[in-house]
């Protein structure tokens, strides 16, 4: 129980430390991007406006949460070692495992809050745009039949909000949580924050090609042994980030089946647990 309290204290402290670092300023950029976008695309048809608003907002959400996960996590361990704060914490009866878990919990809290805020902002802009278009449509079809008006309004509402957006956003969170846990693992043996950031970014790109490498490896075929060896290493050592890449299709209106959504979230959870476990093993033996 005491260990859990200690973990929570470290987690909360990590979260407040990140908030004090003014990381939420990126939300201003996000707001500018989506509000500016909706002003800029006013000359497009409403279907195009909504499509682009969703494309840019969810794309930006995915980029910002991934960057935040990597940058916020990569600096913690090296910074705590440099500032010597880690010695103060670990001198108390706090196991290294709890220390790492607290750090990860704080970062996950920050990611969840950031994604919630971005989602709120995005939905508010989408709702306002929808509201404007609906008012315009009502005014334009004021003299028409009720059936015609209802069909036109339905076309507007169909192209704005759909409930599939929520599973898509939840999967963005799962992907950023995975990246945070992965970066934490890298930072346990990294000599500097920069090294961990560069490694995480490289893995981010390789991870998006992991499924291609896996399919190549598993398909067999008449290829050089070293090509297959390379593909197998990529498939085994790197996370499959394409598995979390549903946003493009969700924007296009494709629904994520519940089973697939739950399994993808579970895969995200497994990756987070695996990287955290490995981070704990390396960190337990690290000379401080």
């Amino acid at each position, binding site marked *: 129980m005491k260990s859990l309290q200690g973990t929570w204290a470290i987690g909360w402290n990590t979260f407040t430390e990140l908030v004090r670092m003014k990381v939420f300023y990126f939300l201003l950029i996000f707001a500018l991007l989506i509000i500016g976008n909706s002003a*800029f695309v006013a*000359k*497009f048809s409403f279907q*195009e406006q909504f*499509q*682009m608003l969703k*494309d*840019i907002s*969810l*794309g*930006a959400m*995915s*980029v910002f949460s991934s960057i935040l996960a990597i940058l916020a996590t990569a600096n913690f361990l090296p910074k705590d070692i440099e500032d010597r704060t880690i010695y103060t914490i670990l001198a108390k009866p706090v196991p290294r495992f709890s220390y790492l878990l607290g750090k990860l919990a704080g970062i996950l809290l920050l990611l969840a809050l950031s994604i919630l805020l971005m989602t709120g902002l995005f939905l508010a802009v989408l709702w306002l745009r929808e509201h404007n278009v609906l008012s315009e449509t009502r005014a334009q079809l004021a003299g028409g039949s009720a059936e015609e008006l209802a069909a036109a309004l339905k076309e507007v509402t169909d*192209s704005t909000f759909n409930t599939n957006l929520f599973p898509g956003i939840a999967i963005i969170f799962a992907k950023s949580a995975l990246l945070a846990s992965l970066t934490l*693992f890298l930072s346990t*043996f990294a000599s500097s924050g920069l090294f961990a950031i560069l490694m995480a970014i490289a893995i*981010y*790109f390789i991870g*998006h*090609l992991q*499924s*291609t490498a*896996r399919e190549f490896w*598993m398909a067999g075929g008449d290829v050089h042994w070293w090509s297959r060896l390379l593909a197998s290493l990529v*498939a*085994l*050592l*790197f996370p*499959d*980030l*394409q*598995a*979390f*890449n*549903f*946003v*493009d*299709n969700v*924007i*296009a*209106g*494709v629904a*994520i*089946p519940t*089973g*697939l959504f739950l*399994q*993808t979230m579970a*895969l995200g959870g*497994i*990756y987070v647990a*695996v990287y955290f*476990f*490995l981070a704990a*093993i*390396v960190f*337990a*033996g*690290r*000379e401080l």
Partner: protein
Amino acid sequence: MRRVMKARRSLAVLLLAGFGAALLPLQVHLSAEAKVANLRQGALNLDLRERIGQMGFLAALSGFRSPLAAFLWIEVHTAWENTEWGRMAGLFDTVTTLQPRSLLYWDMAAWHMAYNASVAVMQDEKQPSEALRIRAQRQYFELGRDLLERGIRNNPDKYQLYLQLGVLLRDKFEDHCGAAEAFMRASEFPDAPPYCRRFAGYEMAKCAGRERESYELLKKLYLEGDKQRLPTLINVLRDMEKKLDIPAPERVENP
């Protein structure tokens, strides 16, 4: 201590590979399920790499296809304002490759090519040869058709592009048999609007050899009730009755 650290790092890498192997079946299963649910995008090719540049290709590979498509769509609009039809055609190819599941991009791209570009080249004062203007116009019709057909191949589960293909074949190609087929395919979807079947009937009436089928379909629609008894439907039905020499007692009554 360093030796311990090294041993732990090696253990971590081994465990990572072990976990990777254990997760393979789940990854393969999820990938297959995503493909079934149309949630797995097609592979990007080197042709796209040439069109969007290295940075764009990297962004597309990293899961940022949709924002990239949105930015390129803004470029499409600029090209449209400058009536750069050739550039628009190239951009449409790129945008639809990046976001093949977005019906809007296919639909708008086909509309721009078949309805806007085709009219613009026909009115091109810089081209004195009418034959060449007609040829250019036909090429833009074909581009529109190609975009819709590719859109359908990427979205076989949606009626909208079949409907647009029917309209294009009817209005620009005067291919009534093809249009009837496309409208019929659209009407088979449960969420398709009821006019898809009417449109199919009208086009079948103009397709040699399918007059009887058209008559039967339109009569069936007529018998469904007032909602389907539109002036065009009644007129086409009457024409078919005359053409097929339907006996008077079998003909529809005057509404």
